[in-house]
């Protein structure tokens, strides 16, 4: 008994009590299907970034306009075309009483106006009372007791304080209008948040039609098969071949508002891709034994489609959905960009970009923000869709 491994336990040869079906007991508590999917999705950074972006976008679109002190239609022509970031000058003097007087202001290089700001960067207002000398191409202001001359006779515009050329003090964020203002002095940020609402409305409509028309249409077509399938798919092809722009224009003839036309056009035609995908899925899934089993148990076709087939196609459906939503958002933006979308003063990302393009040289920020919103949203949905496709693929299950 030198080997310690050979040591026996107490009463080693007593009969072991047999438990019936011990082999059939599940060893580990299994994680559900969706738990698995979530774990795999979480491991994918781009998808998670996209998901977080989408959630933030939704929160901003819902609550942003409520919090904002501005509205999307209120104009303030005195404060038009303000940049989100500016470089203010500081002028200070001491008046007769001995109290120091300081003024901060910045020059809007687009319209040669001076705007007063406070030390933190909050906008106070347009500085008026400048004497314009058209011949000399200069405007003279009296600020804090000093003569400030804006000389725009040559580029870049120069600024003289008491005939001394002055340099600005350093970049500062606009604390009043975070994204600046547009050519009518409306807050770009709040208009963009309203634009996000429109984009999300379009996304929502696209989701609804995809789910209720696309999925059911494709499901019925695939399940019925044969002649029904052939007819239904030819209808889909007819709808798919007519350009969306044409639909929108046709609907604008009947309906007044541009937004309703765009939403209706997307609603009537946007489910065709989904219908095709779902049909393909159902065609393969309906060969499954569990469908036969359900039929032998007396389940009716409607129940088989809804309970047995569609849940098994949920992966491709979700992926298609996340890919179709950004394209719906993009189509709305595009329609608005070419002037078929929302009517002013309502703003969508498309109208914001199209307005900004006119003043792109002078005020590039007006283009930057809506364009960035469109592209980032596209990215976010596509990343999420990509991640979902991988996460839902059962072959990657570990």
């Amino acid at each position, binding site marked *: 008994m030198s080997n310690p491994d050979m040591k026996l336990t107490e009463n080693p040869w007593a009969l072991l009590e047999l438990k*019936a*079906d011990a082999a*059939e*007991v*599940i060893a580990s508590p*299994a994680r*559900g*299907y969706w738990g698995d999917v979530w774990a795999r999705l979480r491991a994918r950074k781009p998808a998670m970034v996209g998901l977080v972006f989408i959630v933030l976008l939704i929160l901003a679109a819902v609550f942003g306009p409520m919090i904002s002190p501005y509205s999307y239609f209120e104009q303030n022509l005195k404060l038009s075309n303000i940049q989100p970031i500016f470089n203010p000058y500081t002028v200070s003097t001491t008046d007769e009483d001995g109290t120091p007087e300081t003024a901060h202001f910045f020059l809007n290089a687009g319209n040669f106006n001076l705007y007063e700001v406070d030390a933190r960067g909050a906008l106070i207002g347009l500085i008026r009372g400048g004497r314009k000398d058209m011949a000399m191409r200069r405007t003279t202001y009296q600020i804090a007791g000093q003569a400030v001359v804006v000389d725009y006779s040559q580029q870049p515009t120069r600024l003289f304080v008491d005939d001394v050329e002055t340099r600005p003090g350093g970049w500062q964020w606009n604390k009043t209008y975070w994204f600046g203002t547009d050519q009518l002095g409306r807050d770009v940020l709040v208009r963009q948040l309203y634009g996000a609402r429109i984009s999300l409305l379009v996304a929502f409509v696209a989701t609804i039609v995809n789910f209720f028309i696309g999925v059911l249409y494709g499901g019925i077509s695939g399940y019925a*098969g*044969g002649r029904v399938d052939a007819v239904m798919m030819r209808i889909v092809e007819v709808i798919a071949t007519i350009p969306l722009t044409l639909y929108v224009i046709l609907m604008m003839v009947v309906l007044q508002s541009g937004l309703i036309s765009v939403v209706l056009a997307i609603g009537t035609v946007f489910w065709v891709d989904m219908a095709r995908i779902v049909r393909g899925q159902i065609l393969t899934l309906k060969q*499954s*034994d*569990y469908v*036969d*089993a*359900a*039929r*032998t*148990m*007396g*389940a*009716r076709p409607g*129940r088989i489609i809804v*309970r*047995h087939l569609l*849940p*098994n196609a*949920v992966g491709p459906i979700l992926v298609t959905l996340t890919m179709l939503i950004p394209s719906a958002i993009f189509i709305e933006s595009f329609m608005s960009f070419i002037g078929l979308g929302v009517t002013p003063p309502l703003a969508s990302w498309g109208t914001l970009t199209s307005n900004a393009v006119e003043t792109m040289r002078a005020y590039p920020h007006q283009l930057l923000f809506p364009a960035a919103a469109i592209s980032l949203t596209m990215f976010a949905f596509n990343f999420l869709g990509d991640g979902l496709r991988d996460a839902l693929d059962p072959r990657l299950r570990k």
Partner: protein
Amino acid sequence: MSHTLLNVTNLHTDFETSRGDVKAVRGVSLSVAAGEILGIVGESGSGKSVTCMSILRLLKRQGRIRAGVAEFEGRDLMKLSERELSDLRGNDIAVIFQDPMSSLNPTLTVGEQVMETIIRHRKTSRAAARARTIELFKLVRIPAAETRVDAYPHEFSGGMRQRAMIAIALACDPKLLIADEPTTALDVTIQRQILGLLKDIQARMGMAILLITHDLGVIAEVCDRVMVMYGGMVMEQASVHRLFEAPRHPYTHGLLASVPDLRAAHRARLQPIAGSPPDMLRPPPGCPFAPRCAHARSQCAAAVPPLFGPDDTALLKSGHTARCWLLHADAPKAEGINT
């Protein structure tokens, strides 16, 4: 003998293909009495599964029932509307499929799939259906039934899934259970458990079972009566004892000879049936087994033999029928067949 539950007469089923009709079932007649276990045995493609699926009218798209009557409790299943039929399926006639791996929907809990059938046919509340499901799980000996009800199919082993399939089939106390090779996809120890379970449940609930298999061992173990199919036809039909003791058809002989016997003499060779089943696209005009039959005569190739019964020859006892020309009164003697 109790009353006849299912009576199928002269069933013909074809499959339409681009090359023509595949004649899968050619004039099958069978009857199942209440509480009886009838086995259907045959090679792959002999038409045994198609026969059963035809009875329930659950053929794939290309399947066509050309002729035949299938009376279930006096109602011809071939003439029922789709709605009446779907009320019957799962309720009076239930099916257990071959592959429990793919016969359960992976996205629904197993309990949900049992409850679905109960609610569909019995119109009970969910709570009652759930209680019944747990009861059924206990009946088919699924351990920890209360928790297993909420498990998904992938959490079940093969044997457990087949038990769940049986639970689904038993959900509404069917009068007839069609078991289409219920044990083929399972390993041997689980096979025995499932067969034992089926037999046990049959004894307790008294339903009739139509058991399709290609395994003669299974037949010997559980069936009362056997039907041997080949080439879409019934070749021989008898009680289990008769069939194993005095098979009258050369094909049945072949089947019995090709079963491995562990107790047989050392190095005894298996005797497979030479050749392969006929092409059902163009079935031979005579006996479908004739091309492979060691006893074949020219009559066999010329015409399909009729089904001989006890009235035709003394070789067949009551309830024993066989489709072979050698049973004809004028036929020459063949060793083991008609001697």
